[in-house]
């Protein structure tokens, strides 16, 4: 099986070496020490993940992260500045994570593995939860072998929540992800969720999307 590639952007040579050694157990790694090199490599070669230190000698790490936004790679940021990282994470909406320095190697590895797993799930083209299956290429929803017709919004909501099982989505986040504008109120999300529930219930999938009081919606993973 082809090994995933990880780009390590870290100007501290000793730390970069250790990161490459640890991540090298599971992935092919490339180490660069500057933001410019990182952007050049990321544009010309495919990477599954960029491990990005936000404190770089030649340019602002945030800028690098912003320029990587259109890139296919997920981003895990290393920084002492939590406020900056959450800004970028908002930008990526789900495809970026961060870890504060100093950290224990286990913590970093756990984060990288988690990102890789969710990436693999998204790329397999199939999202599953109980008897419910989404085929992301055909944008089709199937419950126990029977196809369920969903509108574009309904499908998008279900895909987002099945990709991120276990995560709680607030109505504001869902408005942002489904409509991308502030013109739509939370009522629109309530209506979409309600229709999705009715259709899935009618197809026999049971309760998939749960309401968390005052916080938003949740799709539980199968094992929880």
């Amino acid at each position, binding site marked *: 099986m082809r090994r995933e590639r990880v780009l390590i952007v870290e100007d501290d040579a000793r730390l970069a070496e250790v990161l490459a050694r640890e991540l090298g157990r599971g992935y092919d790694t490339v180490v660069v020490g500057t933001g410019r090199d990182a952007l050049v490599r990321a544009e010309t070669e495919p990477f599954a993940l960029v491990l990005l230190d936000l404190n770089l000698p030649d340019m602002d790490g945030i800028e690098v992260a912003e320029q990587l936004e259109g890139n296919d790679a997920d981003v895990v940021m290393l920084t*002492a*500045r939590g406020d900056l990282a959450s800004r970028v994470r908002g930008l990526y909406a789900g495809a970026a994570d961060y870890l504060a*320095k100093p950290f224990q190697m286990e913590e970093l590895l756990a984060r990288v593995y988690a990102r890789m797993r969710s990436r693999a799930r998204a790329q397999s083209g199939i999202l599953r939860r109980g008897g419910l299956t989404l085929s992301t290429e055909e944008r089709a929803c199937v419950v126990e072998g029977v196809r369920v017709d969903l509108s574009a919004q309904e499908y998008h909501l279900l895909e987002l929540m099945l990709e991120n099982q276990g995560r709680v989505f607030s109505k504001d986040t869902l408005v942002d992800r489904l409509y991308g504008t502030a013109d739509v109120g939370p009522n629109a999300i309530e209506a979409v969720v309600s229709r999705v529930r009715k259709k899935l219930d009618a197809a026999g999938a049971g309760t998939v999307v749960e*309401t*968390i009081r005052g916080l938003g919606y949740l799709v539980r993973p199968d094992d929880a």
Partner: protein
Amino acid sequence: MSLRNQVGLGVALLALLVVAASTGLAYGWFVRDQAAELRRLLLEDVARVAALLDAPVLGAAFVDPSTPGFAVQVVGADGRVVLAWGREEPLPLAPDPVQLPLDGRRHLVASAPWRDAGGTIRVAHDVEAALRTRADLARSLASGGALAFLASTFVGLVVARRALRPLELVVERARAVDPQAPGTIAYAGSSREVRALTDALNATLAAIRERTRRERAFLLEIAHELGAPLTLVNYHLAALRRERPADAELVSAADAAQELLRTSQDLLVLARGELERPLELALVDLRDLVQRVAGEYPGVRCDAPEPAPVIGDADRLMQVVRNLVRNGVQAAGRPEGVRVALEAGADEHRLRVEDDGPGLDAEALSRVFERGFRRGQGSGVGLTISRDLVEKHGGRIAAASGPGGGARFEVRLPSLASRVEDDAGDGLPDDGDRS
């Protein structure tokens, strides 16, 4: 005494002084003029009677006998009344007018010598009515003054309250300033003094903000400098420790490195203001977190038989559990002295961390979550962070004395079940914004 009452009282006292002085003066003038007038009228009558007696005019009466309260007597040298109008009983001799009661009414009496025989003319005026008028005037002046005093006190208080209202407003706004992130106090009114006060307060707040910002920047600088070396030291020592677990010195160094890492993580959470960062909510099993933390501190006894799902931020809940366990290990001096128990309930889950250390006295129990409170070798911020995070998750944290004399920390977090809407059919979260 409040400034408002002081000003009100000051105005009232001033009003009292003015009212008392002016009414007193008016009353005094009136009394003096009235007394002079009464005296003049009496002496005029005496002179007129004397003139009439000396040169009687035919048909002219000394007095109209029906005039009430007016009496004239001609008294001989032997003291006998020779002639009397208006009153039979002899009037007293009074070369200077005197006031005395006659038949229960006050009279002014004056006398003058009549001829050389030693006789006298004595005249009495009833001044009761005039004197009553004087008393009436005194009463109305007094009640008017009292009314004026009350009214000015009231007005004084109202005016003082009005004038001080901006001050109270500024006090309210100053109270509302968040000590963690002090903003500015707004004042748009026209009071120069209040504006000066507001400006002074805002200057102080700005200085505090600037200092906080610099401290944060400094800590972040340190964090950046220490981040990579601490990560590396910890990484290498942990790797060596796995290779040579029997090497006591190495194990001790690895433990210390890990401790250093965790402590700086706590400090950085505060330095970054990360407690203000919104929670990233997901389904989290507390049992996983507890077991992972227990794994980080081999020797800690862990009793977590059931899954305990909650809605929370996994990283931050992990930090809470880790801080409590670390705190216990420090207090007990060894991981074996710490017991972690997770009890899953219907509405809430309880996490108890007990240690067999020296325990906490009453004072320590009340202050243990305060920033900077130190217990043993701890950094003094871990428990503060833990409390903030637990409360952000809608939970509670408490410290108590454990059964074995050590300390016991208990965290209660609302269970997943308690947060899931029972009737999921309508798709409407019950958070009060269904409008």
